[in-house]
């Protein structure tokens, strides 16, 4: 922040340090009266553009508004439109247009170069509030820059990284299907897969959706420390349905009818084909995912219904830089 202010001060202060006295030359462009109206329009447009860019940042950061995406597009689009309009007004109303075309000379023509420099200098002579306009343009540019880099915030929470570690599963929570019906252990068949959610919790929570499959007992080879009686009762395993690569839903289950002649059973993400082995704690078999799917321990209650046996084994959702830090 400090360096931003110093940069601003540097840019603004430049003009103040006694500009060298210009050698009076004959004007090339006839002098035109200043146009306060035009300047006001430019200032207003720049202010509007800055406001739109600021609104983009605000909408992006808030992230809770309805029609969020449309508002983002509107703010960014209007911001650029106002900035463009300001540029057009400057060029049409405030800066005289002068076209010079001359044959190209091989030797540098000092007189011509000076002439062009003079033209450039004079073309700004109509502006009366140069510093104010400069501040406005800088402000708008800054707001535009802020709007463009605002999405960096999505790379991970800088203030509250624990927000990514949210896991609402508690021991005893009942698993239900997408229509809210409890999942019975007797209805979980091998070679089939089931999507489950915690009862009475929004399906939009990152930790909520599960994929449940039944694994053959002889194939089961869970990581060290996961007791099959808790993590795979009767061969039933539950993993987070959210891929650890980019957060898509694990919507594919490769379930070979004849295992001897085709690929082994695997959970597959349809986005980038990350492939996980449900028998080994969802270790990555193939694809860009960098870590296994988080597993949820399970209980089978006296009514043969599935319930959570505790928390996930790892953090749910797509990976971020701190995902391996802290909890195992």
């Amino acid at each position: 922040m400090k360096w931003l202010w110093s940069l601003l001060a540097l840019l603004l202060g430049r003009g103040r340090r006694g500009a060298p006295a210009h050698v009076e030359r004959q004007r090339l462009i006839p002098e035109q009266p200043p146009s306060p109206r035009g300047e006001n329009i430019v200032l207003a447009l720049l202010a509007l553009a800055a406001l739109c860019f600021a609104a983009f940042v605000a909408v992006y950061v808030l992230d809770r508004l309805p029609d969020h995406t449309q508002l983002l597009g509107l703010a960014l689009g209007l911001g650029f439109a106002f900035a463009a309009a300001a540029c057009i007004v400057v060029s049409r109303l405030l800066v005289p247009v002068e076209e010079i075309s001359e044959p190209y000379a091989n030797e540098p023509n000092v007189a011509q170069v000076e002439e062009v420099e003079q033209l450039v200098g004079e073309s700004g002579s109509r502006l009366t509030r140069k510093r104010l306009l400069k501040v406005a343009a800088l402000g708008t540019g800054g707001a535009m820059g802020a709007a463009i880099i605002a999405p960096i915030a999505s790379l991970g929470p800088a203030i509250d990284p624990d927000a990514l570690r949210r896991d609402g599963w508690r021991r005893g929570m009942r698993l239900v299907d997408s229509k809210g019906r409890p999942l019975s252990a007797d209805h979980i068949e091998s070679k089939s897969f089931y999507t489950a959610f915690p009862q009475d919790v929004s399906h939009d929570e990152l930790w909520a959706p599960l994929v449940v499959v039944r694994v053959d007992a002889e194939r089961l080879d869970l990581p060290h420390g996961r007791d099959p009686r808790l993590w795979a009762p009767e061969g039933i395993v539950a993993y987070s349905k959210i891929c650890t690569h980019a957060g898509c839903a694990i919507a594919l289950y490769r379930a070979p009818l004849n295992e001897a002649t085709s690929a082994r059973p695997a959970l597959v993400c349809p986005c980038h084909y990350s492939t996980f082995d449900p028998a080994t704690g969802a270790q990555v078999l193939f694809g860009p995912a960098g870590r296994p799917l988080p597993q949820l321990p399970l209980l089978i209650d006296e009514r043969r219904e599935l319930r959570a046996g505790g928390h996930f084994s790892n953090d749910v959702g797509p990976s971020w830089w701190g995902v391996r830090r802290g909890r195992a």
Partner: protein
Amino acid sequence: MRIWLVLLAALALAPAAAADRGRDLYFANCVWCHGAGLQGIESAAAHSSPGNGPAGGPPLLGVGAMAAHLYLTTGYMPLRSPTQQPKRRRPHFSAPDIAALVGFIGAHGGPPVPHVHPERGSVKTGLTIFTEHCAGCHQMVGEGGIVSGASVPALKAATATQIAEAVRVGPYVMPRFDKHDISPRELDSLVRYVLYTDHPDNRGGWSIGLLGPFPEGMVAWLIAGIALLALARVIGEGLKR
């Protein structure tokens, strides 16, 4: 008189003849992989050297007429090599031969060929079920795609019965869905939706292959890009004057 007697005898023996036909066809075409008692043949070579060595195939006891009908009417069976992925092609057997084989395999137990009633289902419900269970692999309008290690067939050519059978059987690496997961009523809707995708109602006009965001994005970039270039040109020309 003799002719009538022969005809009568033929009629009486017809079902037996069909069963014999099924048995003959099985022993002529299927026994190599599925075994003389439909018990399947285990093959260690199936893992290591596809195409060579003794063929290995899954047991057919209890798969029922349903699976036999699906695999034979889609041309999935017979396979050239047991490690090959079955692909849809013209059925290898004629319709009466398929009926005879389905009858022979169905006689060993298992679910019958299902009856589906897509006309009783709703496209809307079908879409919801398809999105939840099928679209991950088969894409939204049944165009097919890939899953790691296998290709996913398009559903354009599938008949109502074949769709219902595939849902219950889970051919090749497809998972299967039992009646607790997709009820018979829901299956009617699902089949109706899949049949609908053969001729979807493209409200937007141009379907661009119904492949989703990639072709749509390309069209947007190419057409919108050219339009923006043209606009920039018009503005530039306007400013010159």
